[in-house]
């Protein structure tokens, strides 16, 4: 595995492989000293052109637990502000010996562009509306772990997963959809028609505009963050109206089956898509998602740098 830029790039086989390795990493994380020397001497550079707390910290923690060195390239204080091109920046940092770039950028496709300019591996930590593969991987892992399933190409078969919210502009939705359905789950996108993808005929997915209809019959309710900036584009009349139809409150949640899982990629908009405190229900797997994120990202870095399927020349 050279890059992890999208779910389709690594394929179901790659997904399963990473999930298997992640399980081992979870065991490492539960040891008295949750640190192993596997990636000692390798450098992981995080390159975030867009705000992020949890993803960046999660990657840096993952890298450190594998004993890699981490460099946090802060765009706001960099020479990019002096007019240095992205290409020059990448070439400069890779000349300093970066083994992996973890990239987040508001423009779709930037991770592919960057891999033209460096020999280092690229992990896409979110590009525009396009992809956020490690989020999808940790979500698959969380569902698997909560259901007591083993990683395999069909391990989510028979599960129905609702992705609720703005799936049209969501890289998380896109990646999760591919990953969940790649592992055999049935995915339904729920949201107002203006926020559903315009054409889903080529995807193996169904859509619904009624959260209340979907809730009683799904195994996982995956709430997306309502991006307030979408309001400016007049795609939802107002947030209160959105919340009334698609926000999750206690009454709505009580209509789910007792084993239905509640998930959210964070950060949560309390009072918009989440009208109640999810920590009040044991069905919430939101904290698990954060914890498993570290194991899964360790697995991704390990697969890229140490799995040994390519002998270094």
């Amino acid at each position, binding site marked *: 595995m050279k890059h992890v830029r999208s779910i389709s790039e690594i394929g179901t086989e790659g997904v399963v*492989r990473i999930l*298997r*390795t992640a*399980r*081992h990493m979870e*065991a*490492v994380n539960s*040891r*008295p*000293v949750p*640190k*192993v*020397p*596997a*990636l000692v001497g390798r450098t992981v550079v995080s390159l975030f052109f867009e705000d992020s707390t949890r993803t960046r910290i999660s990657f840096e923690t993952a890298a450190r637990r*594998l004993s890699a060195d981490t460099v946090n390239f802060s765009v706001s204080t960099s020479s990019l502000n002096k007019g240095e091109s992205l290409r020059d920046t990448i070439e400069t940092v890779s000349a300093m010996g970066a083994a992996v770039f973890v990239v987040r950028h508001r423009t779709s496709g930037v991770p592919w562009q960057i891999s033209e300019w460096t020999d280092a591996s690229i992990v896409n930590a979110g590009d525009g509306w396009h992809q956020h593969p490690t989020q999808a991987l940790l979500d698959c892992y969380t569902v698997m772990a909560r259901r007591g399933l083993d990683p395999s190409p069909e391990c989510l078969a028979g599960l129905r997963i609702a992705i609720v919210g703005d799936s049209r502009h969501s890289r998380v939705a896109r990646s999760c959809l591919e990953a969940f359905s790649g592992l055999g789950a049935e995915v339904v996108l729920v949201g107002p028609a203006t926020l559903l993808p315009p054409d889903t005929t080529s995807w193996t997915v169904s859509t619904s505009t009624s959260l209340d209809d979907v809730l009683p019959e799904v195994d996982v309710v995956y709430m997306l963050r309502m991006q307030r900036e979408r309001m400016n584009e007049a795609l939802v009349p107002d947030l209160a109206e959105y919340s009334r139809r698609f926000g999750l409150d206690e009454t709505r949640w009580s209509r789910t089956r007792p084993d239905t899982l509640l998930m959210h990629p964070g950060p949560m908009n309390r009072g918009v898509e989440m009208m109640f405190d999810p920590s009040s229900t044991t069905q919430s797997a939101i904290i698990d998602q954060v914890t498993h994120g570290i194991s899964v990202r360790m697995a991704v870095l*390990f697969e890229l*740098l*140490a*799995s*040994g*399927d390519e*002998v*270094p020349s």
Partner: protein
Amino acid sequence: MTRDPGDTGTNDESVHVLRSDDLDRAMTRISHEIIERNRGLDGVVLIGLQRGGVWLSERLATTLERIDGRPVPRGELDVSLFRDDIGLRPVTPVAVTRIPIDLTGARVIVIDDVLYTGRTVRAALDALHQYGRPAQVQLAVMVDRGHRELPIRPDYIGKNLPTSSDEDVVVSPEGVVLRRRATT
């Protein structure tokens, strides 16, 4: 080294070096050596290396308990993330580490099936450090096949087996088999 008469017809390249009962006898001898050398079993902890050493450590624990009458603490250690050849060969960590007690002050006996380059044992010594500071670490192996690349020597040996590097040594409950690797 004797050729297994039951084996010759099927595969000329496989040699049965130890049979199942030879293995049991070696295990009994090693158990007595462990008790003699440690003057009993006080503070002794068995650690089997994933994966070949784990079932051997279970066998050894059973034999020691039969001789001494007391159960011996036993754990399992996976060293794949501590290896020095990470990235040089395929590594798929899947096995688990399970160390039931703090190893500080313990007499740890590391058990593996085959001792070859010594690199696995080196990784195991590193990994053990995270579970405390043992008073002593000893090494028990069923087969010492030579070709060491590090200054590591076993304390208890089932069988010394001179090999060439194009041979594989397979240790299982059925015994020890020396197999010439197919040249492709």
